[in-house]
Protein backbone atom coordinates (compact mmCIF):
# COMPACT_ATOMS: atom_id res chain seq x y z
CA UNK A 1 0.00 0.00 0.00
CA UNK A 2 2.89 2.34 0.76
CA UNK A 3 4.01 2.34 -2.85
CA UNK A 4 0.51 2.93 -4.09
CA UNK A 5 0.18 5.78 -1.60
CA UNK A 6 3.29 7.43 -2.91
CA UNK A 7 2.19 6.85 -6.49
CA UNK A 8 -1.12 8.47 -5.62
CA UNK A 9 0.56 11.23 -3.77
CA UNK A 10 3.00 11.92 -6.56
CA UNK A 11 -0.01 12.97 -8.60
CA UNK A 12 -1.73 14.56 -5.64
CA UNK A 13 1.32 16.50 -4.56
CA UNK A 14 1.91 17.79 -8.05
CA UNK A 15 -1.68 18.93 -8.24
CA UNK A 16 -1.44 20.34 -4.73
CA UNK A 17 1.68 22.31 -5.57
CA UNK A 18 0.14 23.56 -8.75
CA UNK A 19 -2.92 24.50 -6.78
CA UNK A 20 -0.81 25.91 -3.96
CA UNK A 21 0.61 28.47 -6.34
CA UNK A 22 -2.92 29.51 -7.11
CA UNK A 23 -4.34 29.29 -3.60
CA UNK A 24 -5.65 32.49 -2.23
CA UNK A 25 -6.42 33.60 1.22
CA UNK A 26 -10.10 33.69 1.97
CA UNK A 27 -9.92 35.92 5.01
CA UNK A 28 -10.18 35.18 8.68
CA UNK A 29 -13.14 34.17 10.76
CA UNK A 30 -13.76 34.20 14.43
CA UNK A 31 -14.37 30.71 15.72
CA UNK A 32 -16.26 30.42 18.99
CA UNK A 33 -15.70 26.67 18.95
CA UNK A 34 -11.95 27.12 18.70
CA UNK A 35 -12.10 29.79 21.38
CA UNK A 36 -13.92 27.40 23.70
CA UNK A 37 -11.47 24.60 22.92
CA UNK A 38 -8.55 26.91 23.59
CA UNK A 39 -10.08 27.90 26.92
CA UNK A 40 -10.66 24.28 27.92
CA UNK A 41 -7.11 23.22 27.03
CA UNK A 42 -5.51 26.24 28.66
CA UNK A 43 -2.85 25.37 31.20
CA UNK A 44 -2.59 21.76 30.12
CA UNK A 45 0.66 20.50 28.67
CA UNK A 46 1.68 17.34 26.94
CA UNK A 47 -1.69 16.66 25.37
CA UNK A 48 -2.10 14.72 22.15
CA UNK A 49 -3.89 16.66 19.41
CA UNK A 50 -5.04 15.16 16.11
CA UNK A 51 -5.54 17.44 13.11
CA UNK A 52 -7.54 15.75 10.35
CA UNK A 53 -7.15 18.59 7.88
CA UNK A 54 -4.40 19.29 5.37
CA UNK A 55 -0.96 19.78 6.89
CA UNK A 56 -0.97 23.24 8.42
CA UNK A 57 2.32 24.68 9.65
CA UNK A 58 0.35 27.24 11.65
CA UNK A 59 -1.65 24.58 13.50
CA UNK A 60 1.45 22.54 14.24
CA UNK A 61 3.18 25.66 15.52
CA UNK A 62 0.21 26.56 17.68
CA UNK A 63 0.00 23.26 19.50
CA UNK A 64 3.68 22.37 19.72
CA UNK A 65 4.39 25.77 21.25
CA UNK A 66 1.82 24.97 23.90
CA UNK A 67 3.80 21.82 24.65
CA UNK A 68 1.44 19.36 23.00
CA UNK A 69 2.08 16.49 20.61
CA UNK A 70 0.48 16.99 17.23
CA UNK A 71 -0.68 14.29 14.85
CA UNK A 72 -1.74 15.05 11.33
CA UNK A 73 -3.73 12.91 8.93
CA UNK A 74 -5.40 14.51 5.91
CA UNK A 75 -8.40 12.20 5.77
CA UNK A 76 -10.10 13.90 2.86
CA UNK A 77 -7.03 13.77 0.63
CA UNK A 78 -6.39 10.15 1.59
CA UNK A 79 -9.98 9.23 0.73
CA UNK A 80 -9.38 10.39 -2.85
CA UNK A 81 -6.81 7.66 -3.42
CA UNK A 82 -8.13 5.60 -6.35
CA UNK A 83 -6.80 2.49 -4.62
CA UNK A 84 -9.82 2.66 -2.32
CA UNK A 85 -12.36 2.71 -5.13
CA UNK A 86 -14.35 -0.47 -5.37
CA UNK A 87 -17.27 -1.06 -7.69
CA UNK A 88 -18.41 -4.02 -5.59
CA UNK A 89 -18.72 -2.05 -2.34
CA UNK A 90 -21.67 0.15 -1.37
CA UNK A 91 -20.83 3.74 -2.17
CA UNK A 92 -17.95 2.65 -4.39
CA UNK A 93 -15.39 2.72 -1.59
CA UNK A 94 -13.59 -0.10 0.13
CA UNK A 95 -14.32 1.14 3.64
CA UNK A 96 -12.65 -1.77 5.42
CA UNK A 97 -9.42 -1.25 3.56
CA UNK A 98 -9.51 2.50 4.10
CA UNK A 99 -9.80 2.14 7.86
CA UNK A 100 -7.28 -0.68 7.96
CA UNK A 101 -4.72 1.69 6.46
CA UNK A 102 -5.76 5.08 7.85
CA UNK A 103 -6.62 6.58 11.21
CA UNK A 104 -4.68 3.77 12.80
CA UNK A 105 -3.04 4.94 16.00
CA UNK A 106 -1.20 2.48 18.16
CA UNK A 107 -0.30 3.40 21.73
CA UNK A 108 -1.83 6.85 21.53
CA UNK A 109 -5.11 8.33 22.70
CA UNK A 110 -5.99 11.88 21.83
CA UNK A 111 -7.18 14.72 24.02
CA UNK A 112 -8.43 16.88 21.18
CA UNK A 113 -9.33 16.29 17.55
CA UNK A 114 -9.69 18.99 14.91
CA UNK A 115 -12.22 17.57 12.47
CA UNK A 116 -12.98 20.88 10.74
CA UNK A 117 -15.72 20.46 8.07
CA UNK A 118 -14.44 17.16 6.73
CA UNK A 119 -17.75 15.27 7.30
CA UNK A 120 -19.47 17.64 4.85
CA UNK A 121 -17.00 16.71 2.10
CA UNK A 122 -16.17 13.10 2.89
CA UNK A 123 -17.76 10.26 0.90
CA UNK A 124 -20.90 8.99 2.62
CA UNK A 125 -19.67 5.47 3.50
CA UNK A 126 -16.66 6.91 5.36
CA UNK A 127 -18.39 9.48 7.57
CA UNK A 128 -19.91 7.37 10.32
CA UNK A 129 -17.00 4.93 10.56
CA UNK A 130 -14.62 7.89 10.79
CA UNK A 131 -16.52 9.40 13.71
CA UNK A 132 -16.62 5.97 15.38
CA UNK A 133 -12.91 5.48 14.82
CA UNK A 134 -12.19 8.88 16.34
CA UNK A 135 -14.33 7.98 19.34
CA UNK A 136 -12.20 4.89 19.85
CA UNK A 137 -8.97 6.91 19.96
CA UNK A 138 -10.27 9.90 21.92
CA UNK A 139 -9.70 9.96 25.66
CA UNK A 140 -12.77 10.21 27.91
CA UNK A 141 -13.56 13.93 28.26
CA UNK A 142 -11.53 14.54 25.12
CA UNK A 143 -12.76 17.18 22.67
CA UNK A 144 -13.61 17.16 18.99
CA UNK A 145 -14.15 20.36 17.04
CA UNK A 146 -16.18 20.10 13.84
CA UNK A 147 -17.82 22.55 11.45
CA UNK A 148 -20.96 21.93 9.43
CA UNK A 149 -22.57 23.97 6.70
CA UNK A 150 -26.03 25.16 7.67
CA UNK A 151 -27.45 25.52 4.17
CA UNK A 152 -26.71 23.88 0.90
CA UNK A 153 -24.27 26.14 -0.84
CA UNK A 154 -24.17 23.74 -3.78
CA UNK A 155 -21.63 21.10 -4.66
CA UNK A 156 -19.10 23.74 -5.62
CA UNK A 157 -19.07 25.33 -2.18
CA UNK A 158 -15.41 26.17 -1.60
CA UNK A 159 -13.35 23.89 0.57
CA UNK A 160 -11.13 25.76 2.98
CA UNK A 161 -7.97 24.92 4.79
CA UNK A 162 -8.15 26.18 8.36
CA UNK A 163 -5.07 27.69 9.96
CA UNK A 164 -5.18 28.68 13.61
CA UNK A 165 -4.41 32.37 13.79
CA UNK A 166 -5.11 33.06 17.44
CA UNK A 167 -7.05 31.74 20.39
CA UNK A 168 -10.37 32.11 18.57
CA UNK A 169 -9.41 33.11 15.07
CA UNK A 170 -8.89 31.03 11.96
CA UNK A 171 -7.19 32.03 8.77
CA UNK A 172 -9.00 30.54 5.80
CA UNK A 173 -7.22 29.47 2.67
CA UNK A 174 -8.84 28.02 -0.41
CA UNK A 175 -7.94 24.35 -0.61
CA UNK A 176 -8.31 21.72 -3.30
CA UNK A 177 -11.74 21.67 -4.92
CA UNK A 178 -13.45 18.94 -2.97
CA UNK A 179 -17.15 18.52 -3.54
CA UNK A 180 -19.63 19.35 -0.80
CA UNK A 181 -21.45 16.06 -0.27
CA UNK A 182 -24.29 16.89 2.09
CA UNK A 183 -25.71 19.17 4.73
CA UNK A 184 -26.20 17.85 8.25
CA UNK A 185 -29.03 19.26 10.34
CA UNK A 186 -28.87 19.31 14.13
CA UNK A 187 -30.50 15.92 14.48
CA UNK A 188 -28.11 14.36 11.98
CA UNK A 189 -25.19 15.79 13.92
CA UNK A 190 -26.53 14.48 17.22
CA UNK A 191 -26.99 11.05 15.66
CA UNK A 192 -23.52 11.16 14.18
CA UNK A 193 -22.03 11.75 17.62
CA UNK A 194 -24.34 9.46 19.56
CA UNK A 195 -21.35 7.67 21.13
CA UNK A 196 -20.12 10.94 22.62
CA UNK A 197 -21.12 12.47 25.94
CA UNK A 198 -22.15 15.98 24.94
CA UNK A 199 -22.34 18.45 22.11
CA UNK A 200 -22.15 22.20 22.19
CA UNK A 201 -23.33 24.10 19.13
CA UNK A 202 -22.08 27.52 18.10
CA UNK A 203 -24.25 29.16 15.52
CA UNK A 204 -22.27 31.55 13.39
CA UNK A 205 -23.60 34.04 10.87
CA UNK A 206 -21.66 32.69 7.92
CA UNK A 207 -23.72 29.56 7.32
CA UNK A 208 -21.36 27.42 9.36
CA UNK A 209 -22.42 25.63 12.52
CA UNK A 210 -19.54 24.84 14.86
CA UNK A 211 -19.80 21.89 17.20
CA UNK A 212 -17.58 21.11 20.16
CA UNK A 213 -18.12 17.49 21.12
CA UNK A 214 -17.00 15.89 24.36
CA UNK A 215 -16.18 12.18 24.38
Amino acid at each position, binding site marked *: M*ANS*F*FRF*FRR*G*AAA*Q*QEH*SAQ*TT*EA*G*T*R*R*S*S*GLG*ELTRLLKGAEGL*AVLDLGP*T*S*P*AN*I*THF*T*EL*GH*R*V*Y*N*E*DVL*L*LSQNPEYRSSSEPGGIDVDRFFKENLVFRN*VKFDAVLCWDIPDYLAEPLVKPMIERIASVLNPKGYLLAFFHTKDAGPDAPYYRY*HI*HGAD*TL*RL*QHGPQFRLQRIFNNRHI*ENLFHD*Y*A*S*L*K*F*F*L*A*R*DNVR*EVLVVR
Partner: protein
Amino acid sequence: MDNFRPGESRTDVAHIGKSVVIKGELSGSEDLYLDGEVEGSIELRDHSLTIGPNGHVRANINAKEVIVQGKVEGNISGTDRVELRKSAVQVGDIATQRIVIEDGAYFKGGIDIRKDKDQTPRRETSPAHTQTSTPVTQVATPPSSPLPAAPVSSTRG
Protein backbone atom coordinates in the same frame (compact mmCIF):
# COMPACT_ATOMS: atom_id res chain seq x y z
CA MET B 1 18.68 22.00 -10.03
CA ASP B 2 20.85 23.12 -7.17
CA ASN B 3 19.31 22.14 -3.86
CA PHE B 4 22.17 23.24 -1.68
CA ARG B 5 21.60 26.19 0.54
CA PRO B 6 23.80 29.25 0.53
CA GLY B 7 26.91 28.61 2.56
CA GLU B 8 26.90 24.90 1.87
CA SER B 9 29.70 23.51 -0.14
CA ARG B 10 29.35 20.37 -2.21
CA THR B 11 32.79 19.29 -1.08
CA ASP B 12 31.64 19.24 2.53
CA VAL B 13 28.71 16.97 1.83
CA ALA B 14 28.61 13.37 0.65
CA HIS B 15 26.28 13.02 -2.30
CA ILE B 16 24.12 10.08 -3.33
CA GLY B 17 22.62 10.64 -6.76
CA LYS B 18 19.12 9.96 -7.92
CA SER B 19 19.96 6.75 -9.78
CA VAL B 20 21.39 5.09 -6.66
CA VAL B 21 19.33 2.52 -4.76
CA ILE B 22 20.54 1.35 -1.36
CA LYS B 23 19.04 -1.44 0.71
CA GLY B 24 20.39 -1.89 4.21
CA GLU B 25 21.92 0.22 6.94
CA LEU B 26 23.33 3.56 5.89
CA SER B 27 25.55 5.26 8.44
CA GLY B 28 28.26 7.86 8.37
CA SER B 29 30.13 10.64 10.08
CA GLU B 30 29.71 13.42 7.57
CA ASP B 31 26.81 15.38 6.16
CA LEU B 32 24.87 13.63 3.41
CA TYR B 33 22.79 14.76 0.48
CA LEU B 34 20.56 11.94 -0.68
CA ASP B 35 18.65 12.13 -3.93
CA GLY B 36 18.28 8.40 -4.53
CA GLU B 37 16.37 5.60 -2.84
CA VAL B 38 17.14 4.04 0.50
CA GLU B 39 15.35 1.18 2.18
CA GLY B 40 16.56 0.13 5.62
CA SER B 41 17.88 2.64 8.16
CA ILE B 42 19.90 5.85 8.13
CA GLU B 43 22.17 6.80 11.01
CA LEU B 44 24.07 10.09 10.92
CA ARG B 45 24.08 10.95 14.57
CA ASP B 46 26.09 14.17 14.59
CA HIS B 47 25.53 15.21 11.03
CA SER B 48 22.87 16.49 8.73
CA LEU B 49 20.88 14.64 6.12
CA THR B 50 19.26 16.38 3.18
CA ILE B 51 16.81 14.33 1.16
CA GLY B 52 16.61 15.85 -2.29
CA PRO B 53 13.46 16.24 -4.38
CA ASN B 54 14.08 12.89 -6.07
CA GLY B 55 14.93 11.16 -2.82
CA HIS B 56 12.67 8.35 -1.65
CA VAL B 57 13.46 6.89 1.75
CA ARG B 58 11.77 3.92 3.36
CA ALA B 59 13.72 3.92 6.58
CA ASN B 60 13.89 5.27 10.07
CA ILE B 61 16.25 8.23 10.15
CA ASN B 62 18.46 9.35 13.00
CA ALA B 63 20.50 12.48 12.38
CA LYS B 64 21.35 15.81 13.92
CA GLU B 65 19.49 17.76 11.27
CA VAL B 66 17.14 16.42 8.63
CA ILE B 67 15.88 18.39 5.63
CA VAL B 68 13.25 16.69 3.50
CA GLN B 69 12.43 17.73 -0.03
CA GLY B 70 11.47 14.29 -1.30
CA LYS B 71 9.53 11.40 0.19
CA VAL B 72 10.08 9.63 3.46
CA GLU B 73 8.23 6.66 4.85
CA GLY B 74 9.57 6.11 8.33
CA ASN B 75 10.21 7.87 11.58
CA ILE B 76 12.58 10.81 11.71
CA SER B 77 14.62 11.63 14.77
CA GLY B 78 16.44 14.91 14.33
CA THR B 79 18.29 15.69 17.52
CA ASP B 80 18.63 19.33 16.56
CA ARG B 81 16.17 20.18 13.82
CA VAL B 82 13.84 18.78 11.16
CA GLU B 83 12.68 20.73 8.15
CA LEU B 84 9.98 19.69 5.69
CA ARG B 85 10.20 21.71 2.51
CA LYS B 86 7.12 22.36 0.41
CA SER B 87 7.72 19.34 -1.83
CA ALA B 88 8.16 16.98 1.13
CA VAL B 89 5.95 13.96 1.72
CA GLN B 90 6.54 12.55 5.18
CA VAL B 91 4.65 9.52 6.42
CA GLY B 92 5.84 8.67 9.90
CA ASP B 93 6.54 10.30 13.22
CA ILE B 94 8.98 13.12 13.86
CA ALA B 95 10.87 13.70 17.08
CA THR B 96 13.07 16.76 17.30
CA GLN B 97 13.83 19.94 19.20
CA ARG B 98 12.85 22.30 16.42
CA ILE B 99 10.73 21.79 13.36
CA VAL B 100 10.13 23.88 10.27
CA ILE B 101 7.34 22.97 7.87
CA GLU B 102 6.76 24.84 4.65
CA ASP B 103 3.25 25.34 3.40
CA GLY B 104 2.58 22.65 0.82
CA ALA B 105 4.44 19.89 2.62
CA TYR B 106 2.43 16.74 3.27
CA PHE B 107 2.73 15.11 6.66
CA LYS B 108 1.00 12.06 8.07
CA GLY B 109 2.13 11.15 11.55
CA GLY B 110 2.93 12.62 14.93
CA ILE B 111 5.30 15.38 16.00
CA ASP B 112 7.03 15.23 19.35
CA ILE B 113 8.99 18.33 20.25
CA ARG B 114 11.76 17.37 22.63
CA LYS B 115 12.94 19.90 25.12
CA ASP B 116 16.47 21.18 24.84
CA LYS B 117 18.92 19.47 27.14
CA ASP B 118 19.60 22.79 28.84
CA GLN B 119 15.85 23.54 28.89
CA THR B 120 16.48 26.89 27.23
CA PRO B 121 13.20 28.25 25.90
CA ARG B 122 13.29 28.50 22.11
CA ARG B 123 10.04 30.31 21.60
CA GLU B 124 10.03 33.61 19.87
CA THR B 125 7.29 36.13 19.82
CA SER B 126 6.52 36.17 16.13
CA PRO B 127 4.95 33.03 14.70
CA ALA B 128 6.65 33.83 11.42
CA HIS B 129 10.03 33.35 13.02
CA THR B 130 9.36 30.65 15.54
CA GLN B 131 11.93 27.95 15.68
CA THR B 132 9.44 25.41 16.86
CA SER B 133 7.63 25.33 13.58
CA THR B 134 7.49 27.94 10.89
CA PRO B 135 5.11 28.40 8.02
CA VAL B 136 7.79 29.57 5.65
CA THR B 137 5.34 30.48 2.94
CA GLN B 138 3.60 33.40 4.48
CA VAL B 139 0.52 34.81 2.85
CA ALA B 140 -0.93 38.21 3.49
CA THR B 141 -3.89 38.11 5.84
CA PRO B 142 -6.97 40.06 4.82
CA PRO B 143 -8.79 42.10 7.42
CA SER B 144 -10.60 40.08 10.04
CA SER B 145 -14.35 39.74 9.81
CA PRO B 146 -15.44 38.65 13.26
CA LEU B 147 -18.56 36.58 13.30
CA PRO B 148 -19.92 36.32 16.81
CA ALA B 149 -21.59 33.06 17.60
CA ALA B 150 -24.16 32.04 20.13
CA PRO B 151 -23.53 28.77 21.96
CA VAL B 152 -26.31 26.21 22.29
CA SER B 153 -25.48 23.05 24.16
CA SER B 154 -26.99 19.65 24.58
CA THR B 155 -25.72 17.09 27.04
CA ARG B 156 -26.33 13.41 27.16
CA GLY B 157 -26.49 11.64 30.42
